[in-house]
């Protein structure tokens, strides 16, 4: 039964992988077609969005939050130019002019940099706050542990070998575990 189930899941995984890659190929294919159809805007877009590509490569997180931050700002930097190209009488000329102008790249990449800055500030600020909270949490845990020890005795830490009634046998659990691989004699109910 279990073999059959695992076979089924393996098959499902395989089929979903195949589905993803097909989808990816389809999207890429669509993008290529769209890029060819609107090459004036696409050339500016692809060049302008390069920092997002870099961010995507650097960002190892699953959620790709950093990519999203940089990408959003990067796109915000691109969008006014793209808007001008779309509204222009001759988009090809305007696109070439923009690409020729270093200010365009500075503005677009500057926006991407702002994204980086936002990410840095947010992460460092928030993690400092979270570390403080975690430290407070540790203090609270220590306090709770102390209260438990006061009420139930040191043996509640589980570091001593206990008899069937839960009282120390006088042996240290760590030493016992080191000496032999036998199970602890502590018989805590499951």
């Amino acid at each position: 039964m279990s073999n059959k189930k695992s076979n089924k899941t393996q098959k499902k995984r395989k089929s979903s992988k195949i589905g993803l890659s097909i989808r990816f190929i389809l999207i890429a294919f669509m993008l290529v077609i769209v890029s060819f159809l609107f090459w004036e805007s696409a050339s500016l877009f692809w060049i302008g969005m390069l920092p997002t590509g870099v961010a995507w490569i650097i960002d190892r997180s699953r959620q790709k939050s950093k990519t999203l931050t940089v990408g959003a700002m990067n796109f915000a930097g691109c969008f006014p130019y793209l808007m001008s190209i779309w509204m222009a009488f001759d988009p090809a000329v305007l696109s070439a002019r923009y690409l020729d102008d270093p200010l365009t790249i500075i503005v677009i990449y500057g926006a991407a940099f702002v994204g980086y800055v936002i990410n840095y500030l947010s992460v460092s600020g928030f993690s400092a706050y979270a570390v403080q909270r975690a430290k407070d949490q540790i203090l609270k845990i220590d306090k709770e542990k102390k209260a438990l020890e006061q009420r139930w005795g040191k043996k509640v830490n589980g570091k001593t070998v206990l008899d069937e009634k839960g009282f120390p046998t006088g042996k240290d659990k760590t030493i016992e575990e080191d000496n032999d691989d036998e199970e602890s004699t502590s018989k805590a109910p499951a």
Partner: protein
Amino acid sequence: MSQEELQPNLHTPSNDPIISCLGGDISLLMDAVYAGLHKGSIRVCKAQRTNGVGEQLMAYVCDRSLTPRHLIEAKYSKINNPHLLKLVATDVVDWPEEGRKYVYFYSGSYQKALSVEAASALGWKPDEVMNGVVNPIVSALTELRNKDIVHGEIWTGNMLVDSVASSKQIILGDCLSLPHSYNLPFIYEPVGRALADPIGRGAGDISDDLYAFGVSLAMILRTSDPMQGASKGEIITHKIEKGTYSTLIGKDRFNGAILELLRGLLYDDPVQRWTLDDILEWRDGRRLSPKQSTKRVTSSRPILFNDKKYNRPELLAKDLHEKPTSVSYLVENEDLAQWIDRAIEDKTIKVRVEQLFKNLELIDRNHFYNDQLTAMLGVTLYPEAPISYKNNHFHLGGFGKMLTHAYLMEKDIQPFTEILKGGFILQIIQNMKMNPILSTLRSRFDAARTLLSQALLGSGLERCLYLLNPESHCLSPILESYYVRSPEEMMNIFEMLCEGNSNITLFDRHTVSFLSVKDRKNIDAYLPDLRAPESHRRVLGQMRVLAAIQKRGNLKGFPNIANWLASNLNQVYAQFHDNVKKEKLKNAVNDFKTEGNLSKISALFDDPKLYQSDMNNFYQAMRYYKQLEKEKLEIKTRIAKNQVGFETGNQIASLISLVIAMFIVVISIYTNFTG
């Protein structure tokens, strides 16, 4: 006895010749004694009530080594007969240099008895005897029979006379201060009981009282003692060969009614002996037809034992203990079998002896064999004879008191343990004619045999002492200077001992055995706890025992015992994991100990859920502790890896940039379309 009278009277030893008893109600005059009434080690002193007219009393001061007849005290105290001493009170007094002694107080003041000589010849006239002795004793015996009491000490030395009164009527003296018939001279006992040691005679029955009454009459009536100068053995032998009447009366001749009474009472066969009803009929003037006399068995040829010739099995049984080593020879060379078979034509003896030979096959041939064989053969040849084992001659009912006496007098108790351990005693009982008393004794001996081989608390020799002698006081060393007869009295003494002494050990082998015998239903359930190797279980067991006695007896509070318990409960508290619960219990115990309510203290620890929930909660706390540690470790690892708030920071950054981007896009669109 009232509850107050049962309370121990706590006097301190002093040289004052007056001892104040029963809370000052009675004064016992130690130096004023009734010298003519002393019964061996029992002193009889003068006493008087301190209130009212100062009623004169007689105080019988008991011997600690001889167990009084406590079991019939209550019944006896209800008797109100002018021919019996009236028991008015009992008390335990502190006798200087001798410790605590039990005392019986009787009303009246009698200076002397008829005759303190065991064998006397008073030569009274029959008319005087009728009025002065027969009528009073018959009245007393009727009263005793109605209360189901056997007096056990009817003899001239215990027939008190009032020297002041004009009438010559006697009053029967004390029968409670000593073991049954302990002080009765052997001549007043039927042969079977006379052969036993005084302490080992055991409880007799009314026919023994009637026999003693008959002997007393003979002593009072006769003018001479035909057996004067004869030894105990000679008198008993004469009784066996010629009968009691002939032994006591000799050449004296009596006529008329008194002769009938004498003959009726002095029958050696208890079946033929007159009963109390026969005496009452005789007194009313009816003449009784003489009963068929059974002849004692005599052999046609004698048997030789210990260089003596014997013609009667009873006489042989009487002397067997003189040379136990020859008994096995007598049995094994078939002399005895042939003598029984050919010279004695009595089938019952023959059957009994054959049964003995069968039983012998079950007895181990150890170094006690000869003594065991002697004991078994003695009662086989003469069933009324006592069991004779290594110079101890006893009837089954007297064994317990004999053992207690030997124990207290620090005599060699090895023969007693041999008797209890050896199976021969049970075989002897098995061959006896069963009756309810014997059946009880059999179960006691059977239990004692098992208990003696156990070394546990509440068993062993100590338990046997109380099992076989239920009237014994507690012989525990801690109660040595007291006289404890019941669990309730023990509680009172414990209360006194615990005052300011929390280290005292109240439960030893004696106290536990005593309580277990006296209050088996309440105590035996806690015996496993009392015997437990864990000190906390022992303390809990002790607490439950004490609480059970207090509750059953509806006794007052015992603050000192409660205090003693509270100070010994540390081991019990240590059994709880929860310190909060421990504190709560301690506070509750402290609250209850001042009122001395042991049941309430015990109830605090009686709930099994108390221990179970404590353990469960402890393991739950352990799991929670582990969880906290894991959580702490996780937080520490995240801090160490600088991962704390990283993801959230990224997400917030994304959100911010998305909002800004959205804003820029909207602005761009707006400016483009609005120009």
